[in-house]
């Protein structure tokens, strides 16, 4: 049984009237690549900021490698590398100067800093631009430089907040590759993401975060297999409206063998069903045809991580994203991030 490196216990945090975390607990074992999955505003960033000692929880415990982060923050900071979501870069410095500053803040001796700079320049393919000013960098370069600065002191634990948001596919692939490599070499990696495919492709284990709590936890394959049943996505028209979707729902209620039924508003009001077995599908088609709602398209699959999310939260991740998209307050969020 590998050692637990990150222990978060019953974290509570409020920003004024808003409860960001309501009893968040998590354990991450050494050498794993762990994903926090959830929509924006679920509390992922707050958790990572607390872990990195940037923010004090209202209550709860934080331990990294057995060290109490609230009592000995400096010892914990030495163990952690943190790649924040909003990339804070000094535009007027070159990448190298920024890394040298970072090295000094982690008290690396000059020779070790030089060696690390060479290694990381290779690892993240930064040769061509590391001596240019950061202000000229693309999003992908910035993120790689930020990753380099998080890795500079060989942290035992690397924490990344939404590491690939807004990146081109190539930069994303580079970062994924580096993260896997780090994990293989024993670094514990904790990342947050609201990309299902990112967590599915990368993480050994994941936690689904909703409203400041972990509501499901496990390896992607365990979570998927635990669901059972077949998934069916059904449309009676390419884009239906909610009235039509309700009619379809009504018809299907009469069909046996359907375990679950959700209208996916984000995808043209298609219906996502969980069925006992394939045998359910033919009678289902006949019922709909009889009700003058012939099937336009129907696809069938084994459970995906999206289904895991749907099962755990009662809505798809995309719906959850849409729900919070209108209610975000950039001003309040900036205030939270500012000291």
């Amino acid at each position, binding site marked *: 049984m590998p050692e637990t490196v990150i222990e978060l216990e019953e974290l509570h945090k409020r920003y004024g009237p808003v409860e960001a975390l309501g009893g968040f607990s998590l354990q991450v074992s050494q050498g794993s690549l762990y994903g926090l999955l959830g929509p924006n505003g679920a509390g992922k960033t707050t958790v990572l900021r607390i872990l990195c000692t940037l923010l004090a929880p209202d209550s709860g415990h934080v331990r990294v490698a057995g060290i109490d982060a609230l009592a000995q923050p400096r010892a914990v900071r030495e163990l952690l590398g943190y790649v924040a979501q909003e990339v804070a870069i000094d535009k*007027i410095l070159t990448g190298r100067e920024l890394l040298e500053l970072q090295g000094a803040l982690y008290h690396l001796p000059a020779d070790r800093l030089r060696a690390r700079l060479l290694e990381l320049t290779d690892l993240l393919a930064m040769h061509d631009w590391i001596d240019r000013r950061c202000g000229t960098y693309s999003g992908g370069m910035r993120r790689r430089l930020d990753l380099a600065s998080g890795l500079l002191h060989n942290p035992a634990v690397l924490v990344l907040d939404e590491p690939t948001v807004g990146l081109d596919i190539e930069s994303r692939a580079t970062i994924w590759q580096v993260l896997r490599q780090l994990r293989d070499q024993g670094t514990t990696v904790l990342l947050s993401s609201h990309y299902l495919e990112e967590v599915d492709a990368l993480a050994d284990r994941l936690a689904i975060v909703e409203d400041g709590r972990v509501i499901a936890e496990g390896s992607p394959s365990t979570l998927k297999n635990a669901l059972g049943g077949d998934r069916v996505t059904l449309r009676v028209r390419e884009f239906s409206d909610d009235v039509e979707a309700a009619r379809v729902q009504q018809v299907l209620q009469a069909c046996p063998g359907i375990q679950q039924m959700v209208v996916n508003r984000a995808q043209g009001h298609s219906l996502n069903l969980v069925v006992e077995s394939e045998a359910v599908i033919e009678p289902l088609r006949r019922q709909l045809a009889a009700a003058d709602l012939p099937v336009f398209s129907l696809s069938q699959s084994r459970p995906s991580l999206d289904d895991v999310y749907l099962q755990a939260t009662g809505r798809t991740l995309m719906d959850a994203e849409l729900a919070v998209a209108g209610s975000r307050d950039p001003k309040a969020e900036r205030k939270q991030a500012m000291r």
Partner: protein
Amino acid sequence: MTSAPSLSAPVPRPEAPQATRSALADLSQEILALTKRLFLQLARRPSTLVAGVLQPLIWLVLFGALFAKAPEGLLPDGMSYGRFLGAGVIVFTAFSAALNAGLPVMFDREFGFLNRLLVAPLRSRSSIVIASVLYITSLSLVQSLAIMGTAALLGYGWPGTYGLLLVLITLLLLVFAVTGLSLGLAFALPGHIELIAVIFVVNLPLLFASTALAPISFMPAWLGWLAALNPLTFAIEPIRAAYGGNVSLTATVLEAPYGALSTAHCLLVLAILAVGLFLLIRPLLDRKLS
């Protein structure tokens, strides 16, 4: 532009943090690096430095010309107005530079760069403040020396060796006090707009309500009182005396409405102000940096 990483590069195993280095070595390393960053910024964006010298220079030339024909007897000891103004402009230079000390810190707060510093295992977070003080002190002294040099070229005089020492000590105390104030504001105010607004509002009125441009004897009583309580005056008068060749600590340099002040009095007030301001903002810094 984007290329895959070379997989031959080794990623060393995480190692335990070193506990062997002395705290002092760590501390000087981090302060040096943070200060270096501020100077790199200055070297690549020298406009702050240039504007900080140019503005007082314009004051010196324009105001000097404006009052060149000031009536005899307006100034004590038949001093020329240019010579009188010199001390005021030197102090104003150092004061303006120090008043801007909080701006880089405010931008670091706003852009999240401060968070990058706070995630690092700094030996002491005072390093961030110390680096700012070191930077702004050198910057303002360099600017003041540039103004002093120009004033000398304009024929407004130059203090002797002891005088120069006295000028530098006076400026240093004023710069410490004002830097403390500005850093405090940089952490207390919500953003750079507010900070710039406060700087704007404080800057010129403090200059006009001091003895930089005119002696107290020239002012209405109420303004004279204000000027005699203004910290800038406490810096201007010892420097003016030093320029006049008077470097005695005990000689009277200002006839304030409440009594005569010596150079020693002025320096003491500035020192108390500097220490007091840093003590005052300390709880704020502790809270924001912990």
